[in-house]
């Protein structure tokens, strides 16, 4: 072999080695692929709204013979409706295939699919906060034109029967600083949760105590109920590194204590998590987690909280009413039948402002079967189907006042305080966050700040840092 060919071979080997190394280290890139979710997303803007194409008189059979796919997570709402799907098919002639993805992975799947604009699923379950993220890129169909089109929407639908706080929660114009309830209707509320206190009534009765009405009393009560030697603690609420830590109990009590997340100044949002009242409350909340919360609070999500309540390890839970509700069903937990509900502590001015979560149904703007998709949404959020769903047994809370007042009330016999609590808080129940498109990033940052304070960082300086970083993100 002469020098030249030897050099050529050597350089080929070098090349192969580099390619091999590249291949080896490229295995570092599974998430880089995931970053490519938007490969089809170079183009912007929503697809054309399909409502105007529907004309003539309303008829449930208008899309007869079509097949639609819906994306859902296995949730009591979904489980209550699953047996009813055949009734929808009988009523409309539309076949429905429901694809289920576990809640932990649900939004990852949904984000990826919507960003890809494949239109694989025509309808999907979503939360109201997600509208702030999915709406601006045009991934969701505005349902307001559908609601306003008598050819597409039944006269009996009665959208106003859905609680006002829920209707506004799913409507926004995507302008930072604009309140909710402006702009399009991006989803129709299907089921919702208010964040209140569930407690072990048997334990409370045995000690002759009642739920606390004020924040100071609540903290003291939780500490008094904590008995680490007997593996019992006072109150459970979420603490994991997730935006979902902020929105239930924390945001509810934060608002009742008169605190705001953002204020509007000169067209910009200004973070207010470091206001004096917010710092005081945040410090008290974190101290409560330390003194009377679960030992591994920073990993706690709602199933951990409700499990501890059901096991009798936690005396109280400050979280979604619909999350604690199933634990009181016969056979569902050790403490089934022993649980009760209260609104939680009122604010200094008597406020019962409560943050809500709503599972809603939305239409994929890339759907090719928009009329069939709308008929499904209309049916599932309508009075008749929702009342039937409630009777299946695990659908708390229905979003329609008429269904709550009739079918749902009949299921509440063995749930002390549930109805009174609901009626007390529902007039002040709405999304208490300021809508903004960086919600998940800034709210997860907020949860990280709580964890840092829990780990010993100074509350004021940590919340100052949070406010500074949030200001730059929400006004970017």
């Amino acid at each position, binding site marked *: 072999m002469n020098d030249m060919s030897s050099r050529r071979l050597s350089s080929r080997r070098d090349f192969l080695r580099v390619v091999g190394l590249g291949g080896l280290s490229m*295995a570092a*890139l*599974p998430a880089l692929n995931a970053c490519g979710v*938007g490969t089809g997303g170079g*183009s912007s803007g929503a697809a054309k709204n399909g409502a105007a194409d529907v004309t003539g008189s309303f008829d449930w059979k208008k899309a007869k013979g079509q097949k639609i796919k819906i994306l859902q997570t296995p949730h009591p709402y979904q489980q209550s409706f699953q047996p009813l799907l055949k009734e929808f098919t009988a009523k409309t002639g539309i076949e429905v295939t429901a694809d289920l993805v576990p809640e932990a992975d649900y939004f990852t799947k949904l984000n990826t699919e919507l960003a890809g604009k494949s239109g694989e699923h025509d309808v999907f379950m979503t939360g109201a906060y997600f509208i702030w993220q999915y709406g601006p890129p045009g991934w969701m169909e505005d349902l307001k034109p559908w609601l306003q089109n008598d050819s597409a929407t039944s006269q009996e639908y009665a959208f106003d029967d859905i609680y006002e706080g829920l209707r506004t929660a799913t409507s926004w114009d995507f302008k930072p600083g604009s309140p909710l309830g402006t702009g399009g209707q991006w989803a129709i509320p299907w089921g919702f949760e208010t964040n209140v206190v569930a407690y072990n009534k048997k334990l409370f009765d045995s000690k002759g105590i009642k739920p606390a009405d004020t924040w100071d009393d609540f903290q003291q009560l939780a500490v008094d109920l904590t008995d680490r030697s007997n593996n019992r603690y006072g109150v459970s609420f979420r603490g994991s590194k*997730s935006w979902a830590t902020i929105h239930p109990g924390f945001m509810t009590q934060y608002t009742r204590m008169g605190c705001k997340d953002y204020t509007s100044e000169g067209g910009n949002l200004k973070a207010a998590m470091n206001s004096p009242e917010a710092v005081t409350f945040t410090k008290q909340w974190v101290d409560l987690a330390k003194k009377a919360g679960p*030992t591994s609070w920073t990993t706690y999500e709602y199933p951990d909280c409700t499990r501890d309540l059901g096991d009798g390890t936690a005396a109280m839970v400050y979280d979604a009413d619909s999350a604690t509700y199933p634990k009181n069903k016969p056979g569902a937990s050790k403490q089934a039948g022993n649980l009760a509900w209260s609104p939680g502590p009122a604010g200094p001015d008597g406020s019962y402002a409560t943050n809500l979560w709503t599972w809603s149904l939305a239409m994929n703007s890339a759907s090719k079967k928009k009329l069939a998709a709308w008929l499904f949404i209309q049916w599932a959020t309508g009075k008749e189907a929702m009342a039937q769903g409630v009777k299946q047994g695990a659908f708390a809370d229905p979003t329609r006042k008429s269904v709550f007042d009739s079918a749902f009330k009949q299921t509440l016999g063995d749930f002390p305080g549930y109805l009174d609590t609901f009626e007390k808080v529902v007039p002040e129940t709405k999304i208490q966050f300021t809508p903004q498109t960086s919600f998940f990033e800034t709210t997860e940052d907020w949860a990280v700040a709580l964890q840092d304070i829990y780990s010993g960082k100074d509350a004021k300086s940590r919340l100052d840092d949070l406010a500074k970083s949030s200001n730059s993100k929400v006004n970017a």
Partner: protein
Amino acid sequence: MTTTVHDRDTRARRGQGPRRGGGPPTVPTWRRKLRPYLLSVPALLITVGILYPFVLGAYYAFLNYAAVRPNPVFVGLDNFKTVLSDPIFWTSVRVTAIYALVATTVETVLGVGIALLLNRSSLIGKVFERVLILPLMIAPVIAGVIWRLMFNPQFGILNHVFGLGSTFNWLSTKTALWSVILVDIWIFTPFVAILVLAGIRSLPKEPFEASDVDGASWFYQFRRLMLPMMWPYILVAVIFRFMDSLKIFDHVFVLTAGGPGTTTRTLQIGAYEDSIINLNYSIGSTYMFLLWALVFLTARYLVSVLGKAQRRAAGSET
């Protein structure tokens, strides 16, 4: 040339064999020239299939692509400046480096020790050999779920067994990183042990028999014979484990989601948060591009060390 091919085809059709003493069949020049390219087509397709997502992901790192900006524009190195000036990124680098170094070191030491023990064939050794592989058969996400239950202070078995009551938190700011490393060690030490054990069993017996005859002690044999010959196997295990640890995500995310605070926020978790939760694809891609560079350089260095070790074990280098 054409005549030859035609003649050969005609003979084949007639059921006759190749022409006797006619020399090798000639192939048209164009076919000879085309053949290497045709042969490389499958490899080329595979390479394109592998490289396309990589190049696309890398390209995103130079755009300002996010869900709220569906029409991205080229921003040069802005994302790199943003990420590299963010203290949280450097926290992630530190967490990832500590994780990879500690996990790989402990797994290697334990794995080699276990392999040496298992090499002494006995009934218990054979049973352990089979039992050891069980953690490897569990998906890391499931391992995370199992350990999360075991770590739970209220009802987890660890606090109960160690008598820690309900107040010791395995996933606190001080302990979380070490706990997630512990889970990694539980899952992957058997991998190192099995790889090294296979290496030990493939070593030639003669040098050991000769040293036995010379009266060498077990430790001397281990240090001067077995270890130098085992190095390539150990290094392969180290390379796999180190690369994998730099990319760690699954069980850490299940156990802590990168918390408390940023205590266990590895680079992959950072990329996930930016890409999937915040839908800020370009920042997520930048994270992953930087991680790729780190893995690439480390792999290049470790592969060169492996090459040297292989040459040394073969006696071609001292």
